[in-house]
């Protein structure tokens, strides 16, 4: 379970998150929608402990993410994150990209890590790209590699930060299908997305972010069917 309480985060004088409250139960898929600058992506980097926070708390399975006594590297093994920019390791082949963390962090034997990495690469449709370097892949393929890389750690939670925003249109569907498959497999997921159809399809709950707060949260039917907050209405009429 991910519990976020009254989370505040500033970059210098700019307060990006102004008191976020959000609880994500195990097996739940929560999508976050909202305009740019509403703090969606910042929230994900805070959950993973990549960004320090200013106030409030984030607990994952009861463990405080930003507490000094927390082993953040240990915690991150359970929380995978995929970024809008896929950030491939350019000096490693696709297989090595995916194997790296299982080998180094989990201390897996080479053969076992190779098996797991291969499994996940086939899963995301990159079975034929195992030996090549990321520079030979399209953006879409690199993004799927990044998903496989995060999955290879067998995390309990997955955070997706606008993973389809930088993709070729014909690859968006394929990546979203991968996410849907994960959702049906019971993965707990938080997805920041601009794909409204996807959000409607896959989410248990949809949260609308506006100016650093959760302006409205509810079932997809409620948010997309009959939004209560005027800002939600405005945003949704804009993207449709």
């Amino acid at each position, binding site marked *: 379970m991910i519990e976020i309480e009254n989370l505040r985060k500033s970059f210098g004088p700019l307060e990006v998150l102004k008191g976020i409250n959000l609880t994500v139960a195990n097996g739940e898929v929560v999508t976050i929608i909202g305009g740019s600058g509403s703090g969606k992506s910042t929230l994900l980097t805070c959950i*993973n402990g*990549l960004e320090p926070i200013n106030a409030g708390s984030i607990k994952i399975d009861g463990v405080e993410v930003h507490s000094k006594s927390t082993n953040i*590297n*240990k915690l*991150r*093994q359970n929380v*995978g*994150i995929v*970024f809008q*920019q*896929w*950030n491939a*390791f*350019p*000096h490693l082949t696709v297989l090595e990209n995916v194997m*790296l*963390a299982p080998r*180094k*962090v989990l201390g897996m034997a080479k053969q076992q890590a190779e098996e797991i990495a291969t499994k996940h690469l086939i899963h995301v449709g990159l079975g034929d790209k195992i030996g090549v*370097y990321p*520079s*030979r892949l399209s953006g879409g393929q690199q993004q799927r590699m*990044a998903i496989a*890389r*995060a999955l290879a*750690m067998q995390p309990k939670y997955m955070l997706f930060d606008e993973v389809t925003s930088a993709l070729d249109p014909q690859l968006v569907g394929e990546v979203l299908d991968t996410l849907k498959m994960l959702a049906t497999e019971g993965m707990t997921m938080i997805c920041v997305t601009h794909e409204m159809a996807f959000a409607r399809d896959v989410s248990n709950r949809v949260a609308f972010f506006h100016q650093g707060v959760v302006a409205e949260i509810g079932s997809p039917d409620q948010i997309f069917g009959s939004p209560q907050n005027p800002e939600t209405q405005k945003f949704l009429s804009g993207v449709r």
Partner: protein
Amino acid sequence: MFETALTFNDLLFLAKGAGMTLAVTAVSVAAGTVMGVVFGVIRAQFGPYWSAPLTFLLDIFRSVPLLIQLVLANAFQAIAKFGWDPFTTSCVVLSLYTAAYCTEIVRGGIDAVPVTTRRAARSLGLTWGQDMRCIVAPLATRVSLPAWIGLTLGVMKDSALVLWLGLTELLKSSQILVTRLQEPLFILLICGAIYFLISFPIARFGGYLERRWSPDD
């Protein structure tokens, strides 16, 4: 058409000098690079403010002419009764000199690794050390290699200055022969050719590594 008093033994004498040049260079570049990597990581990690004392110290070694450093260090070790022979003194000074330049090369290489790439590594649970070893080191090495090869070649040629401490390296050997045989142009030509023979493989090896490590291979 061309007569010379240079004998085979004289060539052996030059080769011995070249051996000394190589020895001083190898020790200094090795030690200087190790120190440079350590200092470079410190500079990249702690930022300009906390590493200011280190930066200042290294700036001294980068700014003061090497010849002055050698002479001062030699005088200092004599006064302090370290009892260093000229070879040791030369290597200590050249190592620090190399380290001062290498630090900047390493820092530049580390800074060239995108923050987002390192962030992706950390997000997978890699520790700072694992990130440094598995991601930053290989990527930074590629970026730094051309500059480091240049530094190595530079140090090899600058090592000629250690003749002032009484080491008979390649240039000193040539001078001795010039004094004896009075054929300065010919001997310096050979001396230059030997420097080239040492440098060329290093430069080519660098080019080879660069091609091999190019991320597109």
